[in-house]
């Protein structure tokens, strides 16, 4: 019975992708992808997702570092807050961003009157929407890595005569690097696929805010073959990241780390 359910579960995950691959017009794929509108959306998606990942690294690694320290009071509250966007419907995130940064928003009003800056419906808004949705992935992955590189290992290094600076350089940072890379990759793919928050907060303007997922959705009505081609492209991009994550990069993720530790002990 369990096996049957497991097979059904696998089917739910795999069959849609099989259908997508079967429907793909492989021979026409290069021509469909070479369409200027597709290239424009692809360029925008890659650019914004890269920006998002960069900002997420700058903000997320310190946040993860703070969360990884148990002695911090209120860490549980902080972690809950960081986790909320993970479970929140992205559309709600988009609405919330509008209420904060929209022309009449909490901060947006001041930005507009004082600096003449309007954030919504710009490429910056796309990055913000992606950041809201994908930053938690990076934070939690890096936090897991930091916990894996527990402080006892750093202490062990000190007892061998290594100064704290040497320990940070040779032990803590290198051991966390795979986790950071894994978190960044997760963050990038999540940003690449962002739809709900983006369409709500940034709209769908070709060249500035119409990312691949938005373009796919629109093309489904007008040019279904193109929608399929773009979907396959996104699928390939995601799989490429997954393949890159395999092996050493995945070693930084909490689950993989735990598995490896168990293996060493066994």
């Amino acid at each position, binding site marked *: 019975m369990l096996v049957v359910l497991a097979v059904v579960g696998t089917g739910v995950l795999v069959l849609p992708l099989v259908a997508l691959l079967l429907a793909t017009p492989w021979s026409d794929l290069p021509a469909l992808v070479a369409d200027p509108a597709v290239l424009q959306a692809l360029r925008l998606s890659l650019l914004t997702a890269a920006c998002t990942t960069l900002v997420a690294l700058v903000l997320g690694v310190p946040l993860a570092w703070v969360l990884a320290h148990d002695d911090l009071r209120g860490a549980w509250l902080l972690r809950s807050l960081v986790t909320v966007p993970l479970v929140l419907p992205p559309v709600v995130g988009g609405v919330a961003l509008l209420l904060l940064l929209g022309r009449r928003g909490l901060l947006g009003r001041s930005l507009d009157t004082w600096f003449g800056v309007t954030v919504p419906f710009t490429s910056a808004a796309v990055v913000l929407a992606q950041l809201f949705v994908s930053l938690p992935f990076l934070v939690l992955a890096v936090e897991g890595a930091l916990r894996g590189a527990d402080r006892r290992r750093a202490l*062990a290094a000190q007892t061998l005569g290594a100064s704290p600076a040497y320990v940070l350089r040779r032990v803590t940072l290198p051991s966390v690097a795979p986790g950071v890379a894994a978190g960044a990759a997760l963050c990038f793919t999540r940003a690449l696929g962002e739809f709900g928050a983006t369409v709500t907060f940034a709209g769908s303007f070709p060249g500035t805010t119409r990312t691949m997922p938005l373009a796919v959705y629109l093309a489904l009505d007008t040019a279904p073959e193109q929608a399929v081609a773009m979907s396959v492209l996104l699928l390939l991009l995601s799989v490429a990241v997954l393949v890159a994550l395999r092996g050493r990069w995945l070693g930084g993720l909490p689950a993989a780390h735990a598995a490896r530790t168990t293996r060493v002990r066994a």
Partner: protein
Amino acid sequence: MTLEAHVRVARGGFRLDVALRVPPGSVLAVMGPNGSGKSTLLEVIAGLVPLTAGHVRLGGEDLADAATGRHLPPHERGLGVALQDGLLFGHLSARENVAFGPRAQGVAAAAARSAADALLTDVGLAGHARTRADRLSGGQAQRVVVARAVAARPRALLLDEPFGALDAATRPPVRAVVRRAVARGIPAVVVTHDLRDALDLADVLLVLQDGAEVQRGTPAGVVAAPSTPYVEQVVAGLA
């Protein structure tokens, strides 16, 4: 160089109060069940846990003294330490792990590497120098941990369960590595669950119960005349 300490620690409900003196070239084995304070004793000497009262001296130098508030940080104590669970650096190779202490203390890379390779050969891991530490088996990892503690030519050796994961075949060469390091004239404290380690390696065996000494003597003497039923159980490996 003599290791001399009176270690008193009070943390929550746990109390540790142990005095020890380990002359150069000799080994003190510490036995006792989990929670008896063995690991804490080592961590205090290593400088990872602060003293509540007492002192730790090595070769006449104060490493820590609760009376004066002196607390030399772990990396300035010149010790070779193997903590419980080994704690190898998983992202480094076995060789880099062993060479870590010497490298951190400024030994040239080539010299540290060849010394590390020699030690790895001694513990029977010549073929694993380039293996990442997190790909080693439990027994292999433990041998690297001992080699790493010995590699930095420490002024004293502190080993917490250094042979626990080793089988009968791999124990003797690893014990020999420890014995050679001690023979250079340094004191060593070895925490163990296994009486054979104490009999084979130690000059003095100290049995702890709830953070205090219950018996001390030559390992053979303690086995021959355990002072309490508790000691009898500990040396029999039952407690």
